[in-house]
């Protein structure tokens, strides 16, 4: 029997900005198919943790591994070494990050936003990349908008393009930073449905939010942060979340 490694493993990760410990000794394992809601008040370190996990920010201590492969910092014979850029770039497509600001590329059409990274990074042929993009846009209900430029799209449509761009790389893990923050409140239901669809397809996901209600709707595990530390980690189904009050106490570790 082969042991399936965790999709993501974070060990004792810390990151400071000057004197501020934005992420403080965080450890986290995410197994295949899990949908994790990462919650916490604004400034609790959620985005910083996400940026460290995806290698956009270099952490000060601790380790990250993706499907068992070290990412970023490695310990060789007790001595820490920062991986080279090439070593890290090889693993980046495994992490599908959907930024809070989406960061679509405004000079490319919706479909080109999805095609370009496949061709450039994964060296897929244009035909193959286009087929994949068309299929994703159709699944996400955007096929009519494929040749529009990002600013000609509504907030919800842009978000789906950003999601499609990440999904096209066949990531092992999807990470969403505050997926509802840039949207009109009436679109939240749509995002919930979309994330549930992805979960039903077996996608492993981390969804960062500061809204407890939203987190419980889309995830099957809640991880709560406060002042850079994880203060709660548990299942949502069957757990009485209201009485757990994860944000109120630090006695859950």
């Amino acid at each position, binding site marked *: 029997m082969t042991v399936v490694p965790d999709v993501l493993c974070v060990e004792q990760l810390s990151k400071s900005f000057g004197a501020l410990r934005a992420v403080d000794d965080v450890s986290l394992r995410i197994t295949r198919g899990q949908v994790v809601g990462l919650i916490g008040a604004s400034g609790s370190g959620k985005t910083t943790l996400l940026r460290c996990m995806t290698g956009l920010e270099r952490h000060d201590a601790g380790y990250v591994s993706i499907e068992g492969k070290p990412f970023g910092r490695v310990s060789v014979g007790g001595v820490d070494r920062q991986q080279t*850029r090439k070593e890290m770039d090889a693993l*980046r497509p495994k*992490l599908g990050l959907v*930024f809070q600001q989406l*960061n679509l590329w*405004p*000079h490319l059409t919706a479909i080109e936003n999805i095609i370009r*990274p496949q061709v450039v990074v994964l060296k897929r042929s244009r035909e193959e990349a286009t087929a994949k993009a068309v299929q994703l846009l159709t699944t996400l209900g955007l096929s009519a908008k494929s040749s529009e430029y990002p*600013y000609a799209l509504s907030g919800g449509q842009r978000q789906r393009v950003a999601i499609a761009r990440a999904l096209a*790389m066949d990531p092992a893990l999807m990470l969403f930073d505050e997926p509802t923050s840039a949207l009109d409140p009436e679109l939240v239901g749509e995002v919930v449905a979309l994330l549930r669809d992805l979960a039903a397809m077996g996608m492993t996901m981390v969804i960062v939010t500061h809204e407890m209600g939203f987190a419980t709707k889309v995830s099957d595990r809640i991880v709560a942060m406060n002042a850079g530390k994880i203060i709660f980690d548990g299942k949502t189904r069957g757990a009485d979340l209201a009485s757990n009050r994860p944000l109120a106490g630090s006695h859950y570790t």
Partner: protein
Amino acid sequence: MSKFDPWLIVEYAPHLALGAWRTIYIVVAAFLLGYAFGIVLALLSFLPGRLPRTLLTIYSVCLRSIPFIIALFIIYYGLPFFGVRLPTIYVAIVSLAVYKSAYYAEAIRGAIVALPRGQFESARAVGMSPAQAFRHVIAPQILRGLIPPSTNLTLMLIKESSVLSSIAVAELTYQGLIMQGNTYAALEVFTAVSAVYWALCSMTAWLAHRLEARSNAPQAAAIQRNRIAARYLSFERVGK
């Protein structure tokens, strides 16, 4: 004082044409060389650490704080001092290129910095190398932001090339001075010279305008298709 005599210009048209051609030649060469310098300097200034940025600032502040004519004299009289002897026309081109590179570098750097940080990061996040991110995401976007400042700087470059007459480069202004010496008809001569500069600048501005229209074409078309998009445009997030 004699009356304004336009026939003089016709008589001296070959001189004007020669001067105009020499000016075009110098300006194009100085633009290409200066822009290439500018790109290299701007990119180098993004190397990690504070030093590269500081060096670029010193370079550009030094050059931008002196008039072109002084920079020209320093290079023109300085090169032989270091044992370098070049034909005057090359000295002219290199001086203009070096002087303008400081301005171009700052414009290019400014256009890169103006991009939301997230653009580079989102390209890196999907696994593009920094070079690929630059080629596919950053460069196409800065190009658009670069056209207006580059046009202004290049129009200045055309006019500053007249300073080269002071080291006896036979460009347009120099030809004008010769014609004036021969005819004493300063008004006619410099009116004609002005007309040629005006034509050169207008052509440059027109070219730049065409280029800008082309680089904005997809956006313009998209706005045509979706008028509501025009309103979104002004609300586009710029990131933090």
